[in-house]
């Protein structure tokens, strides 16, 4: 019930934050109104990273836990699965919005920049683990294999980022709060908090769904 409330509040707050971002925050000196897409793009990218990290956390906790009771073990597997799905959605959103923003600003839909390439790669990598999850039938082996991949993937992200960065770079540096108008900063932070609420709500819904799926799976077996 509390979490359902969280869902409704976050969606409403997201609406309010969007309104602020669209109408109250001033237009950018260089980019005009186009920059407003960043109020969704930047939080989406943050959430993508956060949920990739949560997936890593779930994976590593699954592998490290001592308990042998499967019903308790699989809690972390469920958590890793749910966060991987949200990570895929958020990376997809970040890349798509970034691309739409890049067209009027940089003049191209796509550029071979470290952060862009790494985010697109994250999308493919986590999508791959989701596909693998569907193909492995034994739940225990599935949990082990996907958790191992989750750990390796996440370790690879900084290495990929570093290597592409050494190679070439174009993405603009992050703006710091000091260089932005205060109401822009507020809009960005509000959007981030709202999106975080929505993502947590989605995570909760997904966890509940996973529990029901598992019960169905086990019901089918016995």
């Amino acid at each position: 019930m509390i979490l359902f409330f969280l869902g409704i509040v976050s969606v409403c707050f997201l609406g309010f934050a969007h309104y602020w971002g669209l109408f109250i925050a001033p237009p950018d000196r260089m980019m005009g109104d186009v920059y407003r897409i960043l109020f969704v793009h930047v939080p989406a990218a943050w959430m993508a990273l956060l949920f990739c990290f949560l997936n890593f956390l779930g994976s590593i906790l699954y592998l490290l836990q001592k308990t042998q009771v499967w019903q308790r073990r699989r809690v972390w597997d469920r958590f890793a699965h749910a966060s991987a799905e949200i990570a895929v959605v958020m990376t997809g959103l970040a890349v798509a919005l970034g691309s739409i923003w890049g067209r009027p600003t940089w003049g191209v839909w796509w550029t071979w920049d470290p952060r862009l390439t790494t985010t697109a790669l994250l999308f493919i990598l986590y999508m791959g683990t989701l596909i693998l999850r569907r193909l492995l039938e034994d739940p225990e082996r599935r949990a082990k294999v996907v958790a191992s991949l989750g750990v390796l993937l996440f370790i690879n992200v900084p290495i990929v980022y570093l290597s592409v960065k050494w190679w070439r770079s174009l993405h603009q540096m992050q703006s710091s709060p000091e260089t932005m108008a205060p109401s822009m900063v507020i809009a960005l932070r509000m959007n981030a908090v709202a999106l975080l609420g929505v993502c947590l709500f989605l995570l909760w819904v997904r966890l509940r769904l996973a529990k029901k799926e598992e019960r169905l799976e086990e019901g089918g077996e016995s």
Partner: protein
Amino acid sequence: MKAVRQIAALVHKDLLAEFREGHALFSVFLFALLLLLLFHFALSLEPALLRRISPGLFWLALFFSSTLALQHSFGREVEDGQWEGLLLLKIDPKVLYCGKLLSHLIFITILQALLVLPMILLFDLSPNRSLAVVFFLGGLGIATVGTFYASLTATLREGPLLLPLLLFPMMIPILLATVQATELALWGDLMGQKEAWLKLLVVFDTVFLLGSLLLAEQIS
């Protein structure tokens, strides 16, 4: 000591199977050669430009063909029930992983050596000794991640489909580092950048070798 003997036995078994069949190495080599020719047709560049990008083509050809070899090697194990047999022998999964890694690394090294002559002839390159380090570190990286992912997908019916999808994104740092280091080794390294790329390769190899060894038990 026992582990070393077991690894040696595993590598011996793999190499024996490889050379008795004989055609696997040869077909993979021909495939890599074919890829180089296909790149030439697809890119339709002048020889000078093609020569400039030839290190990238070489490593890409090696990526694709070595994955083919990996699939063949693991496919044979699973088909004949060897894989189950190996697991039933109660060998430490780490040892099993090391054995497969080493035999794949040997395969890749032979493939690299075979491809050097066509590269020299097709793209008019003059290789030098410093390339050996790049080849070794790159080959080790490809073998490390490749073996781990292949043993994940080996028993799946959709394995052949899934392996490249999961594997190639992981290998991007190797691709970038090896191509850059090869270019610098071939055409001179005025700014001393090669060291950095080699270090990246060393880091990648170490991290993933350790990671795969730690996780080997989880995937067998």
